[in-house]
């Protein structure tokens, strides 16, 4: 008798879950190990960690495996797990110039102090499918590594050892007085004083206008495709940001907390992050024009997200845009993948009671229309 069976709904739900698991494990291929996912699908792991809002590569790999590659589901699983973890404290604010860089580029200048460090990137690769990869093996991998390392020799140009940290490009712009004061975008509290407190969006309700700390958190947890869509709309013309990447970094940030006894800062580990600083067109504050800055930071190696975040950060600070990318309420209400995916899928739930109500309205309205038509005919 339809979707809502008189009895047996419980069984159906349980069996559906079992079938889902079966679909994933019924094949003849070797079971995926989470180590394999973590090592060989690391971009996916980074994306899921960012959207799951939990830096835990092993758990992200597990979620990817368990969800059979459904990235919305995987991020959702991480979020649900995150909810159960006790909050032990907060880390200290960490300047990113202390990042242990593995990639660092700037589009604003041809050359920068420390140099353009391309790192591992697909930017300049040709997107040609490599069919050799379909026939992979540990032996083949050893050969590949040997091939890759064959011609590597220290040349005279590149130093033997790279420095761990690099100066920030925007610091140079600031020194020259070309960049807006860094705290310009910070929301001021009612009495005009700058507000440095952090609104924790996982614990407090988000109301609008939202302070910048809430905005950045929401975007850091946002779904990459959603952020890209909104940023792209701005870049294409439904906006005015015209970004130039001042600096894009990928690297490892130390996580420091205050020691419970000594009170001193100490490092408990490091996480990989991507940071984008985008220079946008100049604004005239107090009659003296300067470049403005958009900032993006997210877990793992995810440049699409960091750049999009930075563009949206700038767009929201400006507020005006020909589209919606500068509308803080619009952006923050629609970029959470767990929320949007959940709501999208909820339409599959039974809605027959509300539909019955709509049917009732429509039938009456149709009757009205018929009566009006009949009245018209009679009048003629």
């Amino acid at each position, binding site marked *: 008798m339809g979707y*809502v069976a008189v009895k047996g*709904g419980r069984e159906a739900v349980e069996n559906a879950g079992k079938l889902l698991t079966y679909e994933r494990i019924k094949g003849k291929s070797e079971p995926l190990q989470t180590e394999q996912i973590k090592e060989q699908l690391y971009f996916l792991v980074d994306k899921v960690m960012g959207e799951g809002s939990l830096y835990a590569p092993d758990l992200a790999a597990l979620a990817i495996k368990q969800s059979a590659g459904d990235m919305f589901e995987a991020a959702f699983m991480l979020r649900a797990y995150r*909810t159960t973890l006790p909050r032990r404290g907060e880390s200290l604010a960490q300047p990113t110039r202390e990042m242990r860089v593995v990639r660092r580029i700037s589009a604003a200048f041809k050359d920068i102090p420390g140099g353009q460090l391309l790192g591992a990137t697909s930017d300049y690769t040709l997107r040609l499918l490599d069919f050799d990869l379909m026939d992979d093996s540990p032996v083949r991998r050893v050969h590949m590594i040997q091939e890759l390392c064959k011609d590597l020799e220290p040349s005279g140009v590149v130093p033997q050892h790279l420095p761990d940290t690099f100066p920030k490009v925007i610091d140079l712009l600031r020194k020259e007085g070309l960049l807006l004061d860094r705290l310009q975008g910070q929301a001021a509290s009612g009495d005009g004083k700058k507000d440095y407190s952090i609104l924790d969006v996982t614990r407090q309700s988000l109301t609008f206008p939202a302070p910048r700390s809430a905005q950045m958190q929401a975007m850091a947890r946002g779904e990459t495709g959603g952020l890209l869509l909104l940023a792209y709309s701005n870049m294409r013309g439904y906006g005015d940001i015209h970004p130039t990447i001042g600096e894009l970094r990928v690297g490892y940030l130390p996580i420091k907390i205050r020691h419970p006894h000594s009170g001193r800062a100490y490092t408990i580990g490091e996480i990989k992050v991507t940071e984008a600083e985008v220079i946008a067109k100049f604004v005239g504050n107090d009659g003296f024009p300067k470049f403005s800055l958009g900032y993006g930071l997210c877990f793992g190696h995810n440049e699409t997200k960091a750049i999009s975040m930075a563009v949206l950060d700038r767009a929201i600070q400006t507020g005006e845009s020909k589209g919606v990318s500068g509308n803080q309420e619009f952006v923050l209400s629609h970029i959470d993948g767990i929320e949007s995916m959940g709501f999208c899928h909820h339409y599959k739930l039974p*809605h027959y009671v509300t539909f*019955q109500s709509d049917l009732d*309205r429509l039938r009456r309205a149709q009757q009205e*229309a018929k009566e009006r038509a009949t009245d018209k005919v009679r009048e003629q």
Partner: protein
Amino acid sequence: MRLKEKRTDEPFRQLNGSSLLKGYQFAFIDEGAKQEIRRKILKAVSIPGYQVPFGSRELPIARGWGTGGIQITLSLIGHEDILKVIDQGCDESVNAINIKRFIIAVTGVPTTQDTIEATIIQTRHRIPEEPMKEGQILVLQVPLPEALRVVEPSEMETRRMHAEADYSKMWVYLYEDIVRFGEISIGARYPVVVNDRHIMDPSPIPRWDIPKLDRAEALFLFCAGREKRIYAVPPHTSVKPLEFEDFKFRVEDFKGAVCSRCGRVNTFLDEILHEETGEKVYLCSDSSYCEKGLLEQRRPNPQDPEQDRRDIHATFPHSNG
């Protein structure tokens, strides 16, 4: 007639068929979250019909699938409660069962299908037909908490409208429907005025159920998990659907159709196309009410309360998951 309490020792064993971590605290969400939700519920009850923002937590159930209702239930439920969960009026709906499984797994609280017996009823899209009494709480799942959203997409703007009681846009919207169609197009989610002050979205319940909100004995709590809002209608509070003097509020018209199972006429009916014959059949949406109706029909001695108790016990056996 209290059902015996039954505690589940290994909460998650049955949930996904896989061994998940044990050791979750009672009612899953942490104490801080519960406290915040309770504080917000108190404020919501103090300003009937007004939406209170809260820090909605993530749950293993997807957003849009009842996380708001679940958070309220988990913040209020205790070992002495008896829980009923329905979706579209039905206890056996896939969604209701899923939610029940989760709540039982993290609380071990007994459940029932009997509206009268339950202390907390979590529901999606229906209010039970049997009037609820003082001390009972109905927790309604809400997808979109803002009644004015249909005329205004911006939250900041609808906040202002509520603050200033500037509801003209809503009235114009209804008026335009009447002019265009001779009928208001809003079916479920029909806007109401609470305590003569705030326009409220009663959640996607049919218009049939709206009169049940007005000056009721029970407490109604509404929660949208994804949108992160809590609101409430306390007992003995006025709830009036928006209407015009010359265009009154109207509930759904079943044109005299009767439930083909229990024979009642005065319930909200599901219109069903028969699996085999394809003909239209009507059944009570409130499945437990339908069961009771069936019981009444079959009862040999219509005035025997003892028989009542035996029948109810047989129809609604103690069920936990």
